[in-house]
Every structure is written in C-alpha cells, then in structure tokens.
C-alpha cells in the first residue's frame, strides 16, 4: 500500500459525483476489519434508511468477490489451505505469490483473455524494465 500513501495509486483521472459532491478517489469495497480510510468503502453497520440499506446490499455483493476468491484459491491450491510448512517468512510469501501468479494465469486462460492482448503488450513493455523477486504487492 506504499504507493497509496504516496498518492500515485489510484489514478485521479476518474471523476464522479456521489451525493452531489465531486470526488476523484476511487475506492475498494472492504469490510469492517479495515481502518476507516477514504479508499475503503465500508458498509453502514446499522443501515437506518432505505438508501443506506440498498448501498449495503450492493457493497456486500461486490465484496463477495474477494471472499469467493479465497474459496476458489483454497480449493484449487491446497498448499494455501493447510498450515504452511515453510520455515521462513520470505519463503512463505514467495509461495503465496507464486500460487497467485498461477491462479491468475488460469483465470486469464479461462476467460479466453478479455483484453488479454493489451495485457500482453503492456507486460512486454514492463518486462523490459523487469522487477525483482521481493517487490510489487497485491
């Protein structure tokens, strides 16, 4: 989340107007476990108006994606389901990253590559720069 702190992510080019106020900060749907930052959109814990109730329903529907992700991830890569047997933390992080990469490759193939061509073109440009093993976060 370092680049969020720096202000380089998310891009501020999208402008939208919720409730008559114009904003530029895009947000993630998050649950109550996260701090109350502007980048995390959380549900109202006690929705007392129909507007808030509807918002909660929609937000939970979007949030369900990430929860579903873990279900898929666990059932596809059992190594993340069982207690980790790695001795050191970097090795554990590497395992998780590698599994995430394989998962993404599988997802990309299953979707028959929506905007895959642009993804590949962008990756070719990025690969020229090349990144190390320990940088780049989710």
């Amino acid at each position, binding site marked *: 989340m370092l*680049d969020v702190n720096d202000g380089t992510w*998310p891009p501020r080019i*999208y402008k*939208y107007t919720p409730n008559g106020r114009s904003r530029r900060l*895009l*947000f*993630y749907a*998050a649950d109550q*476990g*996260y701090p109350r930052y502007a980048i995390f959109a959380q549900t109202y814990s006690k929705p007392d108006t129909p507007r808030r109730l509807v918002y909660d329903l*929609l*937000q939970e529907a*979007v*949030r369900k*994606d*990430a929860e*579903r*992700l*873990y279900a*898929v991830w666990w059932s*596809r*890569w*059992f*190594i993340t389901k*069982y*207690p*980790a*047997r*790695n*001795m*050191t*933390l*970097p090795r*554990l992080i*590497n395992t*998780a*990253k*590698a*599994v*995430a*990469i*394989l998962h*993404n*490759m*599988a*997802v*990309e*193939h*299953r*979707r028959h590559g*929506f*905007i895959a061509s642009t*993804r590949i073109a962008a*990756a070719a440009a*990025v*690969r020229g*720069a090349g*990144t190390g*093993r320990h940088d780049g976060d*989710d």
Partner: protein
Amino acid sequence: MAVVLGARANLSTRRALLSVCEGRVRKRVGGSRPGRRTNRPRDFDLGAHAILRDYFGVDGEPPVYGEDAFEERFRLSRPVFNRLFRSICNEPAWRRTVSATGRPQAHAIQKVAAAVRVLGYGEPFDGADEYCRLSRSTIDMYTRLLTHFNIDMWASKYLRRTNAEELEHILTCNAARGLPSCMGSIFCTHWTWAKCPKALAGQYKDRNGKITVVIETVCDEDLYI
C-alpha cells in the same frame, strides 16, 4: 546442564534471527560424502515415462487420463500447464543434466509435475516420490525454484496494479452492478504457519492464539487478483 541448555537456546535464537536477516537458513544440500548412504537407484526415466504416458501420450497413443483428470491433478488446464512447462523446460536448473558420475539426471517434466503437485495438493515433499521418482529434498528444491521462477518471470505481468484499460473494464463492470467508481474488493485471510520459528511466534498470533500470517488480496469480478 543449565549451561548446555542455555547455549542451545541461544543457538536456536541465533539461528532464527539469522534466518530472518538472510531470509533462509543456509544448509548444505546434497553431494555425496564418505560415510553417507549412496543415492537410491530411482530410475528417473521410469517417472518421466509414467507422467508422459498418463497425461501426454507416448508413441502416438492417447494419454491414459483425459482433460478433466489433467486439470484435477495439475490444477491447471492443459494449455496453461504447457505454457508453464515450455517456458521453464530450458532453464539451466530444470533441463536434464548429467551428473558428475556420467549418469543422466531427472527430466524437466518430472520436476515440474512434482512441484506443481506440491503446490496443488499441498502434499509433503516425499508424496510424489513414488510416482515422479524424485527424492524429497529434490522436490523441496524444485518447488522453491518454481516459485522463484514464477515470480521472476511473471510477477511483472500477473502481480501488479491494474493498468488503465483493465481499470476501465472493472469500473464499467462495477457500475453495472450498482457501485460506480469501485476498483474491486479487498479482503484478507489468515494462513496458519505451522513451522514458525519460536523467536517469531509472538509476532504472528491471531486472535485465537494460533500462529498465522495474513494474506491480503484485491480482486475483481472475475477473481483476477
């Protein structure tokens, strides 16, 4: 006695600290030494032949198992696995080599299959010994090499921020679902750490007292991380 115990505790602490600093415990791997057991005659060809026969077909015959079984066993569909294998099979660590005694070593397909199986099934390293004909230390090494290879090769492609076009797509999707300008959902889970060093155990307790590491992920509607 107390002195001995103290020295031992010191050693383990130091080793744990060392592992944190360096990222790994240095340990001599492999090599034949006088007085140690000789290598088992594992017959690497047998393992490679079994894998090829079962999943890829040998001598013009169709493979024993079909596409469903392939995806079940390797956790990747055939095109994805082929892509992984093709990019990995000519790496110096993965291609077939000849040992110092002139004996040919294991095939790349065995190493990839064993490593993917460890990731996919979460099985111990000697789980695939009987099928892939590789020792557990070899499978351990190649699992680690596979993770390193994946990260070096594809982290820039598959583990990065969404680019503008993808973000556009995600925003359109989420607007259709009723939450405009939502970039996706974020969620975290706890992964139990069985072999946590004692020195670090206090740092990684979850609320139930188990030792866990938090994995945090952002994904979109298609479960793309």
